[in-house]
């Protein structure tokens, strides 16, 4: 590598070894393709290595220590993990994460597919429709969730006011201050936020299915249900898989919605991994435990990455 650089900067010093054709025209990129490829990729590699891979291993290390802010940590083996598993709050966090992810992703998938089917049929004003539908996904979630927070305000919030005026409730629902309703609220907001992404991605998948398939099926006497289950679903499956998997990792790692709406409360009943890790690692300054909690997101990441790569390979083979 060093030799290549020297030759490039003083190309005439070794004229015998170079035919004029090999004279580098600019910087030393042109010894060969391998070298060039490496140089192009190097900045990204340094970034990912230094600020993603290294912090990941650093987190693994921290999670095995009793590190607290301002205090030198001791190696404690897996004690952080065993302590967490025995704690009621963490167990609740695990259950919450699974519930939050399972329910939200299921709703987003089913409703997203429904929306995509409707959007495909809507031929007028498609652009305007798409523009409006995507808005919840475009606006930074921290900011839009502030709006939801106000909507769910128990006293002045419009949700309770409207439900009361409609006569659907006799007393105010304690959104955000009751564990059950708080969970309903954070899941609702996650669905609201993620649905546009599902709908538009599924729509792209639907549009790529050739119209002739449906026409041929109709000639063969297939009904709407048969068309949907025999053509739409199988051909949409790769897109469906990719979007659902991507959403699982993004939903299970969510921070903004729970942090803004409930801060994990009431009484730590709505924590997800990320908010509990923040609470433990920063608010309580127990860095070792905080790092350990964050790492529970990793198995989801690993599983999703593995399955996504399998889908990709299956499709390109």
């Amino acid at each position, binding site marked *: 590598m060093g030799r290549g650089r020297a030759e490039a900067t003083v190309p005439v010093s070794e004229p015998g070894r170079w035919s004029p054709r090999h004279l580098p*025209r600019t*910087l030393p990129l042109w010894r060969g393709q391998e070298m*060039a*490829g*490496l140089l*192009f*990729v190097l900045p*990204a590699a340094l970034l*990912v290595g230094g*600020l*993603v891979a290294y912090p*990941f291993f*650093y987190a693994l290390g921290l999670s095995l220590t009793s590190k607290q802010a301002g205090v030198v940590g001791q190696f404690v083996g897996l004690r952080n993990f065993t302590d967490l598993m025995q704690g009621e709050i963490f167990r609740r966090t695990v259950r919450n994460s699974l519930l939050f992810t399972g329910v939200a992703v299921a709703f987003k998938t089913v409703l997203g597919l429904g929306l995509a089917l*409707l*959007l495909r*049929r*809507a*031929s007028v004003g498609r652009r305007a*429709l798409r*523009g*409006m539908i*995507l*808005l*919840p996904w*475009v*606006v*930074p979630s*921290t*900011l*839009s969730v*502030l709006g939801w927070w*106000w909507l769910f*305000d128990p006293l002045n919030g*419009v949700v309770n006011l409207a439900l009361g005026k409609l006569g659907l409730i006799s007393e105010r629902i304690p959104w955000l201050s009751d564990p059950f309703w708080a969970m309903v609220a954070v899941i609702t907001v996650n669905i*609201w936020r993620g649905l546009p992404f599902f709908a*538009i*991605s*599924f729509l*792209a998948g639907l549009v790529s299915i050739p119209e002739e398939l449906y026409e041929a099926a109709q000639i063969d006497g297939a009904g709407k249900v048969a068309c949907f289950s025999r053509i739409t679903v199988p051909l949409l499956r*790769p897109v469906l898989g*990719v979007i659902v998997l991507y959403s699982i990792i*993004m939903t299970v*790692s969510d921070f903004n919605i729970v942090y803004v709406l409930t801060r994990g409360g009431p009484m730590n009943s709505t924590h997800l991994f*990320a908010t509990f*890790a*923040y609470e433990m690692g*920063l608010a309580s300054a127990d*860095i070792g435990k*905080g*790092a350990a909690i*964050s*790492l529970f*997101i*990793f198995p989801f*990441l690993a599983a999703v*990455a593995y399955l*996504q790569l399998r*889908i990709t390979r299956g*499709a*390109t083979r």
Partner: protein
Amino acid sequence: MTMVRRRLGSVGAFLGLLPYLGFALFPFYWMLLTSLRRNAEIYDVTNLSFLVQKGATLQHYVFLLTGTQFPAWFWNSLLVSVVATAISVVISTAAAYGLVRLPFRGSSFFSIGIFVTYLVPPTLLFIPLFRVVTALGLSDSRLSLIVTYPTFVVPFCTWLLMSYFATIPKELEECAIVDGATRAQVLLKIVLPVALPGVVTATLFSFTLAWGEFIYALTFIASGTHKTLTAGTVAELIRGDVFHWGPLMAGALLASVPVVIAYGFLMDYYVSGLVAGATKY
């Protein structure tokens, strides 16, 4: 006949979409309404109306812009997002080109690495990154965000641009190389102009991701004047038990304006970027 049926189907689909549109857009409408109402109307629990009835006011916006650090946060967000985006797009463009056109030993391994990194959520690494940032002497500075935002932007943009670069015919570049152009010239003068939609999409997404980022900004930055809009609005505008809903809603809306404007002008790029992940398989 089919024409008529299609029209009817379209109307039916539109009617079916209406309830969803209400669900999707109502929060924004209500935020706008709150930001324009006087306090007496905001806190009137007896009266439910969907219009401003007792006179619209800009007092919440005036308070936000003169009585809080909102303008400073706005500037911080702009600075951090623009610089992080510029850095990220350059790094991603180079990496994507290298991976697609100049394969080297281990480049397929690196492609997979980029893909896996693209799936890494920021919440997985914010604690160790905070310590790295502190060790580098960057804590409580906007530089800490400029340095860390590319970690989640670059993998996404590289992945996105790889799919754009892969569609450009190789022959185009080979002709130029035969004519004596260097790889760098090929990238700048031939590939980039053809892949411009991809680069615009990558830029738009970088900016949106950086502008909306929350947990790093919340964690790395302590002092109010260095905060970005997301962290500032949530952490500084909410004080005590009495919420100032008027300024808070005004702030949330104003802070969203730049990304919504960018999105409004470049919606097609946005959609193509959104579905790139879904359709390239």
